[in-house]
């Protein structure tokens, strides 16, 4: 089942996306702070949730895209970036009553590593460890799990970095940016995502707006066979 990712606001995006692809998404992947060049979900979470509800895809996946130079930095930067990311998700959760955690209590929090960005082990370990240890809303259930969006076959360290992670720092999953056969929403291509050797790819961005000539402000993604990405997203249980 396929869905969208976008740096725009869902409420201003879903109509044009539906017009172009003619189907409801299974989920939306949205940006949270620190993402200095994106519209942020937590800035107007109620309107975003209404948009997701109206789109027919009431599941919100969480991604953060820090300044990419940060990812080559040290553990202090990784801890600080993860702290703001977790706080931003929590602030949206507190701002919208019908926005809830996934029922399996596994909310994958994705770090955006772009193609020519290097991921240092010290940054990743600190970032992932903060996410895994976050006592979300003081629930005592620690529902946040780190995940990495990357291009596994990029020449820059990504898979080789996370291969060295241990314990709680090991990513729950990889979200692959390649390959890119394009395609629509209702009939996504057969699974052909790039993969790392130690962490399974569970989400695949098979169509990017620019490369695939889409007009709506979305990229297209699908979960791996047997993996329903919506189960690992925030859930909008009613229209706020």
């Amino acid at each position, binding site marked *: 089942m396929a869905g969208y990712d976008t740096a725009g606001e869902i409420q201003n995006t879903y109509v044009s996306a539906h017009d172009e692809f003619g189907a409801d998404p299974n989920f939306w992947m949205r940006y949270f702070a620190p993402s200095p060049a994106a519209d942020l979900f937590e800035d107007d979470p109620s309107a975003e949730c209404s948009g997701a509800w109206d789109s027919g895809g009431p599941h919100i996946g969480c991604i953060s895209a820090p300044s990419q130079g940060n990812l080559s930095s040290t553990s202090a930067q990784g801890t600080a970036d993860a702290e703001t990311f977790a706080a931003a998700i929590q602030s949206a959760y507190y701002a919208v009553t019908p926005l809830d955690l996934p029922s399996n209590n596994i909310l994958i929090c994705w770090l955006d590593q772009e193609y020519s960005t290097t991921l240092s082990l010290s940054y990743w370990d600190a970032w992932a460890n903060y996410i895994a240890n976050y006592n979300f809303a003081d629930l005592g259930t620690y529902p946040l799990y780190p995940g990495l969006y990357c291009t596994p076959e990029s020449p820059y360290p990504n898979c*080789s970095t996370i291969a060295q992670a241990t314990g709680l720092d090991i990513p729950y999953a990889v979200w692959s940016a390649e390959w890119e056969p394009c395609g629509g929403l209702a009939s996504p291509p057969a699974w052909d995502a790039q993969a790392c050797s130690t962490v399974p790819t569970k989400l695949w961005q098979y169509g990017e707006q620019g490369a695939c000539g889409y007009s709506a402000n979305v990229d297209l993604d699908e979960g791996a066979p047997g993996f329903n990405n919506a189960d690992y997203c925030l859930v909008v249980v009613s229209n706020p």
Partner: protein
Amino acid sequence: MFHRRKTGAVGLLHSGRLASGLSRREVLAGGVGAGALLAFPIGSPGSGSTAATGSAASSGSWYAFLYGTPESSPYPGGSFMAAQSPASASSSAHSPFQLASTLAATPVTSPDQATVALATVDTTAHGAKVTLTLIDQATAAVSKQGSLTLAGVPADASILATPVFAPGTTTVALVLAIMIPSTGGTLRKTDQSGKVTTATATTWKSHHELAYFDSSSGTFTGAFDLADEPSLALTTVAANGTDLFVWTTPKQQPTAYSKANPKPAPLSTVRAFPLGSGKPRFSVQSPAPWPGGEPVATLASGDIARLVYARNLQVCSAKTGDITSHTLAPLAVDRPKPSAVTMQARPDGTLFIAKPGIGTAVIVDPADSFRVKSQVKFSVPRAPGSAPWTKAVLSSSGDTLYVVGGASSGGVSAYDVSTGKLTASYAQGGRQYTGLSVLPDGNVLAVGPTHPRLAFFSPALSLLHTVDTSLQIAAVY
């Protein structure tokens, strides 16, 4: 490949050549080498953080600086190197050399581009030692260095140290985010195979302190504890000739919130501290977003401009803290993927802003309601959101825009800022570059993923030299 001493800084290669590419004989002979000898570490034995002292090299040419991660496992972050700009195509090329490792934050360039500030942190049983090192771009030498000890900071604390140049003064402020861990509670995690891991949870609390470094005397004032725990570590910081401006965000406390009574997120606060002081002159709430790496610049008026959502300028009055917002129409183009975005205050008072993800750069005039004075459109690069973010840079005179080539062509292109027309390009072999820097001598440095990673160009984009480095480059100065 570097071979490191235990202190983590530059050591001798087995071949007898320093990581700088210089032999020990060359070093001891003086000249270029004299400074390189001083590039050995000054950190305490066993410390993981170091910055070089003394002149690393000096032969009349300018230096570009590189920040990133050594390409060898385990990919430690925060390395810093210098690469010499060649005088001409016939002059000999020098290998880049390492100046520092394990920096506590991304290096920061002075408003006049003449100096780069590096911060390193060493935590000990007695506290944390924060060292600020200023590197001169003309010589790659240390122009000043000073240290500050924060007593009582536990050894397992994590410190993000951000230098801030106060234009027109000798002050470099240091904004310190101090994150202290504690343990408690038991967490259970289930992996994809269903295996359950149980561990004791770690919780972090952050607060901020300020210090001021006088680059003429080499001494610190402070540190001043802002007593803002718990807050988020990330800040937005800038300074003018009289004040330091710091955006911070309180950490949301679950005890004050409930799902039944939804409340909006807490707002950030911007405070103005007179240089040298830990007491704010004003403290006002700031509209979203929270500090998260947004570009920031000090305007000629002394006001502070923050570029948010890659299209809106939030301008903070230096006098009152009041914030006004301006939308930059040429940048208000949405894309699904965030773009790199950069902003730079220019000597003539204008702002240069580039957003490679939509292939647009503009120069706006703050003195004329942020009117767009110039706009250049260019091909979108292959990976417009990736590091380094400097994919479109302006010449010192402001008349030429250099950009990394488009996704299909690669190379480097130059545009006339006044007309927006392409004036020169270099695209031999379709080689892809990922970031650029313009040096004070007018040369252009392009960096890329494949070896050799550095290409120096003349202002007219004639290739002068290629030079290699083992650094995976995240930022270029």
